[in-house]
């Protein structure tokens, strides 16, 4: 257990120190949300209607683009070799790294959503639904992204390829996340139906992601 706690503490420390990527994801999120109305035009009624979709897309991209260094950095400095020789199961280690990644990139997005939602003229109900769906959905995105991050380890230019590998896998999370947020605002489907499916996808990805990522890492190392 202490090996996993040590890994969590170390990844959190690295993320918040100089050169770490914490909060750059939030900045990316903010920039994307700023650019969208400039492209669509400043119609507040339109922005209010598609606001949840914009925020979900921006959160999805911010979450995934932050992932490409997750294993690659450990691979480049030789840490990954030692991580594989540890006594803790690799699947759990990968899951813990995913948790640290979510705490430093996913959770800040959720916290930043209410103020950023004001730019899109969202009301309190829509804001609440968005925060709830993102809180449940972003861990799913991170844990699916683990698979791509692991596959991208030995490729020198992971960034764009990672997005191509992972984005199709995130489709269900996006669909049900936006559907739940919209259902809360407009109906006619009750919020609970898509939200429950979203929860199920996230739980499934928390189980599948680490196993697939650990398997990918083992393959890549050989």
């Amino acid at each position, binding site marked *: 257990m202490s090996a996993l706690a040590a*890994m969590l503490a170390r990844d959190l420390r690295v993320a918040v120190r100089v050169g770490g990527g914490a909060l750059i994801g939030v900045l990316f999120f903010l920039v994307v949300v700023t650019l969208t109305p400039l492209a669509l035009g400043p119609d507040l009624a339109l922005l209010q209607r598609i606001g949840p979709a914009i925020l979900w897309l921006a959160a999805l991209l911010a979450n995934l683009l932050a992932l490409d260094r997750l294993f690659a950095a450990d691979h480049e400095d030789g840490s990954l070799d030692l991580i594989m020789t540890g006594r803790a199961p690799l699947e759990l280690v990968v899951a813990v790294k995913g948790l640290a990644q979510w705490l430093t990139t996913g959770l800040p997005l959720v916290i930043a959503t209410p103020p950023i939602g004001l730019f899109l003229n969202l009301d309190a109900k829509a804001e609440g639904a968005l925060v709830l769906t993102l809180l449940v959905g972003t861990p799913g995105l991170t844990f699916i992204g683990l698979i791509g991050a692991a596959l991208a380890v030995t490729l020198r230019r992971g960034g764009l390829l990672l997005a191509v590998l992972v984005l199709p896998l995130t489709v269900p999370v996006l669909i049900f996340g936006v559907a739940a947020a919209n259902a809360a605002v407009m109906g006619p489907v009750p919020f609970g139906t898509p939200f429950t499916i979203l929860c199920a996808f996230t739980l499934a990805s928390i189980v599948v992601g680490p196993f697939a990522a650990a398997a990918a890492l083992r393959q890549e190392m050989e």
Partner: protein
Amino acid sequence: MRLCASDLGCRRGGRTVFEGISFAVEAGEALTIRGRNGAGKSSLLRLIVGLVRVGGGRLALEGGDPELSLSEQAHYLGHQDALKPSLSVGENLRFWSEYLGGLSSNAGEALTTVGLAALADFPAAYLSAGQRRRLSIARLLAVKRPIWLLDEPTSTLDTTAQEQLGGLMRAHLAGGGLILAATHSALGIDGAKELRLGEPQ
């Protein structure tokens, strides 16, 4: 404890790196692995620690802890130092010591042994190549594992540090440990066995 390999082979990317390697190392013995560049010295060490798949033959550890796999009883010191530049020297060592299953209390002692205790609070980014290598070596001392797999351990060390490493290796052997080291230079261990790669056996 005895690590023995018979007719060991390694293939990577469709190419045979080496084949037909046999050796046996007993507790308290060292094996230096020699050979020209590309002969597979690093691959052999990575194969033993489980980072490269065994391509043929047999590798076995006799008399080790039956609960643990070979790689969990081995320390691997590769070319890279596995340090995070933004973490302090002490944080780096304590992390590996806890992760690899040692007691974090040993970390301070290990830092003193390699002469880095004064820099414990400094970011690892400030260290020179030799200091980084010594910090990696401190990992071997902070966590007790019987098998040391060292890949060019002396490459960035000055003469004093090389002699110091020699002393640490002799102490490890005296305590019943095993050392396999890939190297071009002398390690300062008397009576070490030698394995030559890339030549007819």
